[in-house]
């Protein structure tokens, strides 16, 4: 059974249909990529899946449960964590505090919310440090988020998503704006996370997509036009016309 499923999911903004009757099944343990030209509706699809926008039509199922219309903060508690395409961290916080609030959000007990010191939550702090360690930022845990490099902020973005110990990780262009060297590091990171999490990945860089994905869905003007393994997608003539061809031109 699919862990995350979209059925005939649509979203319109006035006359514009950003997501048009999308059917998507994310199998547990896989890395499923969503590709498509700019403006194809990929980020909007993420915003629907994570409850930031309510869909205009269609249903979303998580672990067999209908979560359509559930608000973002509740969906996060179910185990869906996302990273953002534009870096979206807490700039005035230290790196550790950035991941700490993420880990605390999904900790099972909020006892002492008003009076316990944050350092006394050993489990939450350990989970936060683990997330920083996973992305290789543990050495910089006391630095402020606004003072680290863009590449490191992208890693932090990922760590915040990881800190919530999610069941599904939705990564929106984790390599956006990274140098080739930083991109290599990010790819290695995503590959290391593969298998530990069910991952849905939006990415533009085809070499990344082809090398890490188990399955690929192709979006074009709000609709899914193809789905398959990397090899199948590369052979698909419609995809070549809509996307790969467009890039070559």
């Amino acid at each position, binding site marked *: 059974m699919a862990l995350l499923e979209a059925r005939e999911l649509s979203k319109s903004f006035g006359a514009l249909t950003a997501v048009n009757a999308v059917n998507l099944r994310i199998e547990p343990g896989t890395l499923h990529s969503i590709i498509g030209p700019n403006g194809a509706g990929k980020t909007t699809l993420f915003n629907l899946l*994570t409850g*930031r926008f309510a869909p205009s039509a269609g249903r979303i199922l998580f672990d067999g449960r209908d979560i359509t219309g559930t608000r973002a*903060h509740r969906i996060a508690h179910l185990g869906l964590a996302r990273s*953002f395409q534009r870096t979206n961290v807490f700039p*005035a916080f230290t790196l550790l505090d950035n991941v700490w*609030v993420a880990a605390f959000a999904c900790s099972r007990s909020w006892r002492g919310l008003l009076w316990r010191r944050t350092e006394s939550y050993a489990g939450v702090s350990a989970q936060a440090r683990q997330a920083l360690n996973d992305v290789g930022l543990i050495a910089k845990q006391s630095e402020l988020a606004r003072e680290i490099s863009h590449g490191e902020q992208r890693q932090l973005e990922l760590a915040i998503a990881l800190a*919530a110990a999610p069941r599904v990780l939705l990564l929106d262009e984790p390599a956006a704006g990274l140098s080739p060297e930083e991109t290599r590091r990010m790819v290695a990171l995503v590959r290391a996370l593969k298998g530990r999490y069910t991952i849905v990945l939006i990415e533009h860089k085809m070499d990344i997509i082809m090398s890490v994905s188990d399955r690929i869905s192709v979006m074009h003007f709000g609709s899914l036009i193809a789905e398959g393994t990397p090899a199948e997608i590369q052979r698909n003539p419609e995809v070549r016309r809509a996307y790969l061809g467009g890039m070559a031109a």
Partner: protein
Amino acid sequence: MRHAIVTEIWIFAIFGLGLNLLLGYTGLLSFGQATFFGSAAYVAGYLLKYYGIGIFTALGVGIGVGALSALVVGYLCVQRAGLYFIMLTFALNQLFYFIAYQWTSVTGGEDGMPGIPRPALLGIDFRQPLAYYVLVSALFLLSLWAMQRIVESPLGKILQAIRENEVRAEALGYNVPRFKLLAFVIGGAFSGFAGVLYAMLFGIVPLEAIGVVFSGNVVFATLIGGSGSLYGPIIGSVVFIWLSESVSVLWARWPLLLGVAFVIVVLFFRGGVVEAWSRIWRFSKRAS
């Protein structure tokens, strides 16, 4: 300085601590804190005057009324963001003000509610200025300690996270409006607590205690002191009350000074006196 002035400073500082949880930590500018301050002062004042309740009962009532009124006002305000939020806190404050203004049989309207006693406790006569000063000082330290615990708790972190990045906080799993409301209720409880102490200090609840000018004053004082730190509102209260009580005797146009101080803060020291001080400190250390 007379005991009464320092007592007033501590009371205003408690009021400022409550506002700063909203303004400094959550990033919500409330222009209606006097709603909770005044409501608590009226209710507890009424009970003190006509029902002879004790000091601690009155303070408990104040906390309760402050929190409850903040729950109602906050529930309406947190639905909106930015300017609309500010205007709502302001408008609802006006609403409460006019209720107090019209309801003369209870509040005394423009004349205020006079004759509020300071009941004795354990044989201590709090009508003595020194005794009341000591009591308020102790309660101020208690409030400061409580607020410090709150801002260093997970709640403090979450509120700051909301201030820094509301969308991300929501995506992490925090019900942002609910947390804003919680900040409101806690701030309201501090305001109500201060309101009752204020009523007992002067023996009257003046109509101004629920007015928007009073709400503005605490925002002013907090910004001058520095909204970025726990101690900012305390320093702001010292500056504000000291100026208003001592300079106002010498010069009726004293708010001009306050205006100048405010302009300087906004232009050069966004972190208020606290930031100015730490900059001077660093500068002098580098110079030596």
